[in-house]
Every structure is written in structure tokens, then in C-alpha cells.
């Protein structure tokens, strides 16, 4: 690459919060037609750096240059004006508006007399969508699109401002493998058009795949900026965590399986049908499948959060039809929801409150909460799972993703359920915490609990499970024992 002025240059940026140096003299640059990835464990300072770049926060010191000119952003709007757009990790779109309206939200082309010019809006939107080579109807409601398509609309929205720099924050966090491939294709196209792309992701394989350069942050400092060619996963991980560690490996242990604790016999409802499988004491069973395969609906129905209309569900030898999660929990079933912020935690409550949520009725004397018992139990759980908190009364919203996930796991360990459904327990969690979470799930199985596991990454599932069943379009399309595991043959069953 020739030595030109970088599109974006961050020079000696520091940001201090009370008691924390979130960023410490960070320098970072991005050239036209380049993908520069930013990686680091949760809490390494990625989010803070992005907020400073995009004007959401003001750095304590340091400078940001765009195209060689000093830029001072007071808000994301300023940043967009200087042709820097950000695509957020969590979708920030209006599901009730059309695709075209979302793409041009706040920048709608005006027709005669200031009226909205729907025809032009949709024409412009289809142009943008066509540039990304996707066939999405610009006049359709956004809410009807799949998550993947919504993500693409979000990228179109960023492109609508005609940016030179696009910042993508974890764009693939909730996508499955082939959707990721599609998105990476789009990013390569953007790169060819000369845009500069800042890419943030926990998924190291795709980072290595898409990037020209990779910058690793740790504890608010740049540890290294490497060319993607010539580095590998292991090297990146050791840079991120500061030592060599292989995540997810060596945690598997062979266990004696006991009697059948849960037996689904041709269960079905409006989302899935003819689903049959059994689960043994001490077993870790994975359910694999692409988005829309309805495995989430199956596990929710086991937990009483959805109704089962057909077939029989036998739990501990008794036929059950749970009317609510409360019933399922009474029968020893636990459910660790993937979306910890929406379904797993009450964010404005404390760690102790959250961990005790599943066993409130056991921590009571005449209706009064036994505060001492709650705190004691919470401390035990914090030790057991190595949860990093400043106090048991810290709000869970202040914890990092990995520690939040450990709280979700902790609240179910506290309940001592013997059937545990874990939905994507490591979503958005950094490498170090991932290892500890897999370790915790293995030890639950070692203690004789039965685990049903859903993860987005097949690789993780193959590392952790004794057996994997594959689902496609609401039906079981294959079953694999551990000695039969192969990513290729399993993935093949996705499309049956």
C-alpha cells in the first residue's frame, strides 16, 4: 500500500472514567480500501474507543484526524457529517417502518411542498440494496425481515450517508455461518469501492479472514497491530489474554451416563413437529441448526414457555405438560436464556437479587426475605464461578458480558435443577470467560445433571457435547454421537 494520508487516524487517545483508565494512549489508523479489525477481551476498551471515534463520548486527551484534518465530534451526527458511519452491534432500526424509510431515517428526500417522496425514497433504497447485491423489497416492513437481512439494511443505512469510513461493531454476533459468509462478501465489496472499514468482532476466524490489519487492545492499551497475513488464531488469543490459552479445549471429560431423565416423544406445536429424543443423567446433548430451524422453540416448550400441542413429554418418568416456566422449574428444569439482557437478568437489580431470583421461595421465613442467606448463597456462587464483582450488591448492568453470563449460570446452579437448558451460554463473551463457562457446564454434567446445549458456533458445540441432534425447518434431521462428529457431515444435515 502506498504511503498516503490515512482516512482515519487516532493519535494518543486517552479516556479516563472515575477510577478507571479505559483508554491509555491508543493510536490507530485506517487507510482507504482497508479492513482494520479491532479485537480484545470484554473490558479491553473497544467500546470506549468506538464511542470516542463516533462522537458519543469525548476523549480525555488525544486527537482524531479524518482525511488528515483534525476532527472534533460532539455527537454521532457530527461524525456522520464528516463521513464516518457506525453500524451498531444491537440493531437500532424501527421495525414498524419500511426498509426504505429505515435506510433514510432522518435523511428522507423531500418531494414538492416538503411532502414525503415515497417513490424516490424507494428508488434510492433499491439502488443501495442493489449495490450490496441483495434482493430485499424496499417497500416491505422491516420487522418482517430476518435478523441477517435487518443487519444488511443497517449497513445500507450507514452507506446512505455516503461515508468514507464505516465502523462495524460485532455485526455477526447473532448471525449463523452462511449469513456471516454473505456479510463478509458485502464487506469485501465495500473495501473494493475504497471505503475504510473498522471491524470489531469476537470471532477470530472471520477477523483473520476479512482483515488487512488487526489491532489488539488489552486493558485500554494497544498491545499490537499486526498484518492479518502471517498471524494465526493462537497468536491473537495470546495477545488478547496476555498468555497462551486454548479456549474451549481440554474441558471435555468423558462421563458415565445414567438413566433417562427427559424423553420427548413426537412432540410438536405450530413451530415444530415430530421431535423425539431422550436425555440421560450426566449427558450434554447439543441441538444444532440454522436460524429458523426452531430449536429455540423446542427448548422453550420443554421449559413451559411455549405450549406442546402434540406428542408426549416425559420428565423423570412422568408425563408432563407444563403450563408455565414455574411448573417446569418445579420439576427440576433450568433455562439459561441466550439473550441475557432481555431474558436472563434484571439489569437494574443487584448480583445477589439476580442469583436469588430462582430460589426466592426457599430463602424466606414467613414471607420475609432472609437477607443473610441470600448474601451467603451469592458469595458462594461468586467464588464457585469466579465472578468478578466489586460487591454482591453491585448492579448486574455494570458487569462485563462474561460475568453477566456467569450470574445467569449461577442463578440456576443455586436452584440445583437436574435438567439444564443452556442457550448460547458464551454469546458475546470474551475468550477467558468462555473457557470458565464451558468448564462450569462440564462440571454440572460431572455432578450428574443433564444438559441441553444450543450454541451458534458448531465448533463450540462439538467440543462440549456427548451427542448432537440436528434440526432443520422444525424437524430433527440427524443425530450424531461424539465419535461421529464432523463439522462437514453435521452442517450437511442443516439443509435436509
Amino acid at each position, binding site marked *: 500500500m502506498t504511503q498516503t494520508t490515512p482516512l482515519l487516524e487516532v493519535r494518543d487517545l486517552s479516556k479516563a472514567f472515575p477510577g478507571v483508565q479505559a483508554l491509555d494512549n491508543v493510536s490507530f489508523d485506517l487507510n482507504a480500501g482497508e479492513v482494520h479489525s479491532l479485537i480484545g477481551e470484554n473490558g479491553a476498551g473497544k467500546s*470506549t474507543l468506538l464511542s470516542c471515534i463516533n462522537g458519543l*463520548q469525548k476523549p480525555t486527551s488525544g486527537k482524531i484526524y479524518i482525511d488528515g484534518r483534525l476532527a472534533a465530534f460532539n455527537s454521532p451526527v457530527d461524525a456522520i457529517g464528516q463521513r464516518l458511519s457506525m453500524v451498531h452491534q444491537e440493531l437500532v432500526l424501527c421495525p414498524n417502518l419500511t426498509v426504505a424509510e429505515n435506510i433514510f431515517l432522518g435523511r428522507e428526500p423531500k418531494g414538492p411542498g416538503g411532502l414525503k417522496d415515497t417513490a424516490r425514497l424507494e428508488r434510492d433504497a433499491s439502488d443501495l440494496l442493489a449495490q450490496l447485491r441483495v434482493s430485499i423489497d424496499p417497500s416491505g416492513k422491516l420487522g418482517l425481515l430476518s435478523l441477517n437481512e435487518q443487519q444488511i439494511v443497517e449497513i445500507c443505512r450507514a452507506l446512505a450517508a455516503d461515508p468514507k469510513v464505516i465502523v462495524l461493531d460485532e455485526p455477526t454476533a447473532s448471525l449463523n455461518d452462511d449469513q456471516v459468509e454473505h456479510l463478509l462478501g458485502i464487506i469485501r465489496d465495500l473495501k473494493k469501492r475504497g471505503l475504510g472499514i473498522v471491524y470489531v468482532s469476537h470471532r477470530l476466524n472471520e477477523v483473520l479472514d476479512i482483515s488487512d490489519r488487526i489491532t489488539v487492545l488489552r486493558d485500554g492499551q494497544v498491545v499490537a497491530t499486526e498484518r492479518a497475513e502471517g498471524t494465526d488464531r493462537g497468536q491473537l488469543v495470546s495477545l488478547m489474554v496476555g498468555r497462551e490459552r486454548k479456549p474451549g479445549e481440554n474441558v471435555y471429560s468423558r462421563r458415565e451416563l445414567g438413566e433417562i431423565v427427559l424423553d420427548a416423544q413426537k412432540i410438536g406445536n405450530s413451530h415444530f413437529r415430530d421431535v423425539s429424543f431422550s436425555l440421560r443423567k450426566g449427558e450434554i446433548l447439543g441441538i444444532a441448526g440454522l436460524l429458523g430451524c426452531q430449536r429455540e422453540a423446542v427448548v422453550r416448550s420443554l421449559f413451559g414457555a411455549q405450549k406442546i400441542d402434540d406428542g408426549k413429554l416425559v420428565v423423570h418418568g412422568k408425563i408432563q405438560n407444563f403450563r408455565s416456566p414455574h411448573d417446569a422449574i418445579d420439576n427440576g428444569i433450568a433455562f439459561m436464556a441466550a439473550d441475557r439482557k*432481555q*431474558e436472563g437478568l434484571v*439489569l437494574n*437489580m443487584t448480583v445477589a437479587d439476580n442469583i436469588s431470583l430462582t430460589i426466592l421461595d426457599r430463602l424466606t421465613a414467613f414471607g420475609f426475605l432472609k437477607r443473610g442467606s441470600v448474601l451467603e448463597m451469592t458469595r458462594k456462587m461468586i467464588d464457585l464461578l469466579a465472578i468478578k464483582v466489586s460487591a454482591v450488591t453491585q448492579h448486574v448492568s*455494570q458487569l462485563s458480558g462474561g460475568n453477566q453470563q456467569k450470574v445467569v449460570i449461577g442463578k440456576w446452579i443455586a436452584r440445583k435443577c437436574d435438567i439444564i437448558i443452556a442457550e448460547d451460554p458464551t454469546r458475546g463473551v470474551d475468550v477467558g470467560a468462555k473457557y470458565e463457562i464451558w468448564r462450569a457446564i462440564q462440571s454440572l454434567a460431572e455432578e450428574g445433571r443433564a444438559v441441553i446445549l444450543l450454541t451458534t458456533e458448531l465448533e463450540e458445540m462439538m467440543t462440549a457435547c456427548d451427542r448432537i441432534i440436528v434440526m432443520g425447518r422444525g424437524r430433527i434431521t440427524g443425530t450424531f454421537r461424539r465419535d461421529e462428529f464432523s463439522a462437514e457431515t453435521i452442517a450437511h444435515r442443516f439443509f435436509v
Partner: protein
Amino acid sequence: MSVANENLVSRSGGLGKTAGIWHLHSNTINLLALLLLLLIVGRILSPTFLTAENLKIVLLAIVGTSIIAFGMTMVVISGEIDLSVAGIAVLSSIAGAMFLDTGSAFLVISVTLAVGVVLGFLNGILVVGIGIPSLIATLAMLGVARALANITSSGKAFYPDDVAGYLWFGRGDIFNIPVPIVILIVAALLSIILTKFTVFGRKLYATGGNVAAARLSGIRTWRVKITVFTICGLAAAMGGILESARLSYINPAAFPGMELRVLAVTVLGGAALIGGRGTIIGTVLASMIIGVINSLLNQMGISIYVQQVVTAFIILAVVLPGLKNRLVAK
């Protein structure tokens, strides 16, 4: 993770280190400071302001609103709203008044409270059972209850002058303390215990904080919501009794706009309409602040309408900085 969100939380007071049973939210401390300031201002403006006699008058004026606001606070913490409180207060009082002829205060009071409980329970059923948003369900309840009060009484008021036991609730004394104030204190203590020290309280905050997470943790959130609507109905009936007994006048057109005054006190006290936040202590303080302001303005001879404007501005002034913190990232 959104940075704005992190700020929201760190600003809301519960930083953890000091959190304990007696931990007060920063909002509560602000309210306490404002109340003390107002009392000092009152003392400066009028030497008789801080006398027991005057404070008694101030408290008596806020008893009804406060007790109903305790119920409202719980409903709001659960993530719902109850606009029917004035309707419930009126209809339950009128229903009780139907039994004034028996001369039995016990019967009148029991019927009033029972009707309040039933109407509150009905609100709960409409909201969780049928799934009508609480704003709409309780607005309908407000209209129906007020109308029914007028229909059953033919629009005529009742005068419970002959039922001494009923009047005692408005004018009696216990150890020289007016009965309404004793009931206010008892109601506040019970509400604090319920929200802060019981398992039900934890379930309440969890339900309002994140209904999906609470449900998936095995909490029967529908039960929690029905319970708080029922408590709110009971509180509305109790508030109705105390006000009617004080005035010795049970009027089918009573308490106009009461729901908004109650809601104002609840919000001023720190309860968030999105649920999960709010304290009874905050509501108590907010209610006292409004009472003291009104008393001060009264003594200064300012008209009731100007008082309402002033009260509204004070609510905005107290609530706004908090809102700004939530909306603007530092």
C-alpha cells in the same frame, strides 16, 4: 454495549459499595434535602409554620393522596399504571354509604374496602388475564366506576354524621394523634416492609425490571401484577374512607383529578413508569413536599390555581435533572 446505558446505571445511585438495607437512593436524599429546605423556608416566612398544630394540618391534607400513592407506587414498580384510583375511591365509598342506614360503621367500612379490593382485582384480571394495556383498562375502569357511583346514588351525596364509628376514621384521635395520620404511618410501614423486606417485594421489582427474565426465572408475574392492582384498589378505598370521613361527606363526584395528583406524587418520588424502579420512602417524601408547598402557598394567600401551576413546575424541576442524566451521556 451502549455507553449511555452504563452511565444511566452508574448515575442511578446504587453503586453497590454502600448498598444495604438502609441504603438510600440519591433521589431519596435529594427529596429529603428539598423537604428540609422547604421546612426551613416555611419557618422563616412564618414563625408558626413548624408548630405541631400546623404540621398536623399539613399531614392531614396529604393522607388520602399518600395512601393511594403507596398502592400506585407498587403498580408502577410492576411496570403498569392505574388511572382508576379516583373511580375506585368514589364507587367503593358510595357502595359503603348504602349501608349507612344500618348504623354499623364496621359494615360500611368493610363493604367499602371489599369493593375496593374487588375493583382492583378486576383491573388485574383485565390487564393480565385479558391482556388489555393497563393504561386503557384502568381508564375504562375509571369511567365505569365514576358512572356507577352516580347511577347507584342517583347523583346524591351521603352524610355519615350519625355513624360515629365512620367519622372516627377522619376525626378521631389515638394518643392525641389524629387517626388518619396513624393510619398513614401504619400504611407506609406496611408498604415499606412489603416492598423492601419480603420475597414478594423482590418478585415485584424483578417483574417490573424485566418481565421476561422474571417469568423465565419461575416467577408467576401475572400473580404479582394482580396482587399489586388489588392492593392499589384497597389503598384507593382506604383513601376514600379517610377523605370522606374527614369531610363527613360521601360524594359521587368526589376526588376529581385525584389519579393525576397521585401519579404526580409517585413519579416525583422516583418511580419510573417503565417499571422496576421506585420506593415507598420516595413517595412518602414526595407527598410531604407537595403538602408543605401547598400549605406555604395557602398561608401566603396564593390562589389554588396558581398553586397548581407552582406544584407542576416543582415536579418538573425535580424530575427533569434525573431525566437529563438518563438521556444525555456525559
